[in-house]
């Protein structure tokens, strides 16, 4: 067994209510590493042949919660959630920072593989004694806060009952879904720690479709043994020295960007991306920090970047709402994108969306889309039962609940922005293109809060268009080379990007080598391992289905809105350069060894050890 792996995965069949341990051979682990890479491999092996027929929300789909070999041992522990995405119909590696990741490793497992569907709500408990399926009827319908409280009490009491003599049991780590995931809101998140989410990909609804409310983990073992322990201990110290030098991130996180990104880089969604600029200083960081930050240094397991800050509203109409900063993404999506520029309203919306388990980026993207349709008279008060007005947190609160409960037009909006656009067009007897103009997504995945039009943010032309994870702002495409050692790597090693950027790359890859013993370098990830993982993701994304299959090239593009000229601000008139997108897309494909339609070539598949994908790709090339 290479270092860093606990050595086994929990394989759960909820239909048959059976749990067993599964292992992967060393070669598979070296080739696909863990997390996102291993997820693509597991999904290809188990579902590849019938991929286009597998409905993401059917019992056939597989829900994966995987760590990687570096999880918890390298700073910034996260869990990677995956499966066939009910949103993109491909594979997304979606990560969240959580003690669930360290706890499951200490329980002796590298992850959980869940198939089937339970006949009633359940949760899975993973301890040193193995996996168990436990009833969760009493948790169904509960929001995040209540779920955490109940599970902390219940699991701790149960473990104490089993081993009362050992002293206090620490609370378990957990991932769970809220009402949005339960009600199969297609782009719902897998939640953890109240306000942390694996948001992209819609894996909250995959859990919901399996009647799986939560997975909890509590381990008493060591973190996995590594290949070169003394080197790892030294690298651990060195890495933390670098992280502790990141003053800006440590002091403010991304909590000051709600004003800065909007005003300075003009790449922040305002009212469903009708604008990307604002000069509302209420969204300035100090207004959040001075009034609401109750804990200014909040970290996850083995992290000293501590980019999180805990916010709480202690008086007024949103009294008792708790969330993190909010971070930039939610300042944008639960704020400016809904026309909200008041910090308390923004914190409230973030806390609400998190409690509902409705991915803080993707859910409010759909809400903004709906509000624009109302603004344009396409949807009316009758569709909603109220007026969704820009900037009005009361009506936006109603809208969030409407979607989470799938009531009225919420039932359609719960399909996510792209599918909702198609459905509403049908309802209103309109041309779908008329509505897709306002749908800001790539391959069904609503785009993170960084636009491409100003070209002043880190997201340029093909950032989303070429990405196998569509609108995911944490995993954007660059050139098919440098991005192969970015989040493709961190999502497979499974640790936080904010414990990665700013640390010398040689140090991180030495760390990876010292943990696993694999001959890993940045170069090997850029040339082989990264391309292997992304190519396999691309294969599955191209296969798509059953309800939507993306068209090569045509769908490898930005949404129409990203080609409208910016209407305001310092970058007024600027827009994404379509010619450049087309040109760079071809370069991107060529670098990765894909043909001019973005389909991996036979030679590339062979070179990457993915020859078993050839027959499926051959059909597409014809």
């Amino acid at each position: 067994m290479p270092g860093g792996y606990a050595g086994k995965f929990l394989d759960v069949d909820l239909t048959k209510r059976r749990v067993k341990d599964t292992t992967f051979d060393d070669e598979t682990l070296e080739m696909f590493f863990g997390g996102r890479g291993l997820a693509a491999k597991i999904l290809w092996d188990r579902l590849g042949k019938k991929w286009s027929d597998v409905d993401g929300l059917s019992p056939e789909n597989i829900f994966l919660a995987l760590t990687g070999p570096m999880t918890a041992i390298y700073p910034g522990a996260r869990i990677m959630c995956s499966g066939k995405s009910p949103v993109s119909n491909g594979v997304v590696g979606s990560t969240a920072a959580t003690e669930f990741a360290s706890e499951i490793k200490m329980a002796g497992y590298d992850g959980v593989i869940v198939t089937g569907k339970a006949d009633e709500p359940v949760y899975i408990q993973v301890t040193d004694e193995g996996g168990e399926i436990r009833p969760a009827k009493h948790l169904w319908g509960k929001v995040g806060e209540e779920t955490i409280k109940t599970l902390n009490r219940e699991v701790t009491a149960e473990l104490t009952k089993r081993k009362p003599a050992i002293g206090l049991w620490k609370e378990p780590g957990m991932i769970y879904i809220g009402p949005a995931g339960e009600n199969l809101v297609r782009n719902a998140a897998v939640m953890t720690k109240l306000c942390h989410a694996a948001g992209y990909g819609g894996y909250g609804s995959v859990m919901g479709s399996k009647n799986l409310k939560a997975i909890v983990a509590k381990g008493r073992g060591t973190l996995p043994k590594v290949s070169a322990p003394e080197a790892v201990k030294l690298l651990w110290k060195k890495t933390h020295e670098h992280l502790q030098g990141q003053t800006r991130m440590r002091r403010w996180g991304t909590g000051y960007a709600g004003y800065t990104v909007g005003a300075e880089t003009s790449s922040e969604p305002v009212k469903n991306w009708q604008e990307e600029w604002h000069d509302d200083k209420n969204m300035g960081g100090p207004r959040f920090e001075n009034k609401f930050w109750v804990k200014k240094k909040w970290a996850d397991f083995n992290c000293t970047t501590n980019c999180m800050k805990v916010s709480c509203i202690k008086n007024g109409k949103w009294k008792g709402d708790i969330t993190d900063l909010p971070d930039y993404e939610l300042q944008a999506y639960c704020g400016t994108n809904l026309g909200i520029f008041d910090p308390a309203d923004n914190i409230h919306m973030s806390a609400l969306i998190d409690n509902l388990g409705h991915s803080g980026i993707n859910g409010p993207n759909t809400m903004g889309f709906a509000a624009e349709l109302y603004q344009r008279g396409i949807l009316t008060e009758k569709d909603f039962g109220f007026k969704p007005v820009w900037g009005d947190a009361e009506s936006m609160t109603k809208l969030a609940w409407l979607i989470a409960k799938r009531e009225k037009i919420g039932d359609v909006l719960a399909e996510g922005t792209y599918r909702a656009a198609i459905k509403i067009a049908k309802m209103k007897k309109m041309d779908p293109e008329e509505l897709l103009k306002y749908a800001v997504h790539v391959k069904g995945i609503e785009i993170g809060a960084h636009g491409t039009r100003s070209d002043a943010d880190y997201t340029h032309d093909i950032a989303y268009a070429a990405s196998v994870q569509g609108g995911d702002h944490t995993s954007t495409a660059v050139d098919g080379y440098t991005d192969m050692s970015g989040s493709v790597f961190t999502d497979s090693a499974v640790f936080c990007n904010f414990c990665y950027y700013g640390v010398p790359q040689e140090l991180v890859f030495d760390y990876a080598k010292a943990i696993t013993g694999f001959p890993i370098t940045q170069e090997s990830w850029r040339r082989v391992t990264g391309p292997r993982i992304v190519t396999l993701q691309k294969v599955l994304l191209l296969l798509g289905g059953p309800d939507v299959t993306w068209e090569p090239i045509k769908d490898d593009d930005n949404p129409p809105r990203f080609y409208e000229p910016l209407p305001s601000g310092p970058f007024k008139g600027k827009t994404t350069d379509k010619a450049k997108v087309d040109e760079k897309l071809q370069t991107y494909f060529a670098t990765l060894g894909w043909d001019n339609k973005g389909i991996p070539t036979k030679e590339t598949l062979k070179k990457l050890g993915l020859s078993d994908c050839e027959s499926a790709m051959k059909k597409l090339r014809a």
Partner: protein
Amino acid sequence: MSKPIWIARDYAACSGCKRCELACSMKFEGWMWPEASRVRVFMPFPGVEVPHLCTQCKDYPCVASCPVDALSVDPVTTAVIVDTEKCISCSKCIKACPGTVPFLHPASNKAVICNLCNGDPECVKVCVEAGYNALTVVAEGPNVNKKLFSRHPVEVAKDLAVFFFGEKGEEVI
């Protein structure tokens, strides 16, 4: 640097990074093993983190409770020292502790109690180095009733939740 010391705790300053657990276990177990760490950080609700470790009560109820004299007090640092050869895993020290601080080691099943690293605690080093100062070393002073700090971590967390979240804090744990 053996001298009487005490680890002061500032719960509100704890980031929850749990590096104290990693540093402690690396020193005493040779590898990262949070559940064998002499300091354990409880988080009964997100954001509410409580580092939990021995406070060296003046009357040492744990030492008094031990039926086999496996526990003793270091005359210099004042830390409780566990003689694992003698320990019979009876859990009496755990029950005697007002904060239920000691626990049985996940592998050896022997009592685990902070020994103050002979006066230079690893947990404090990493906490201070990161600028959190949730754990700091102070010279022992007669006006500190150390036993007040020996309290069930969930009880501490309940207070802390009110401190952070006001009225809402009363219901989250």
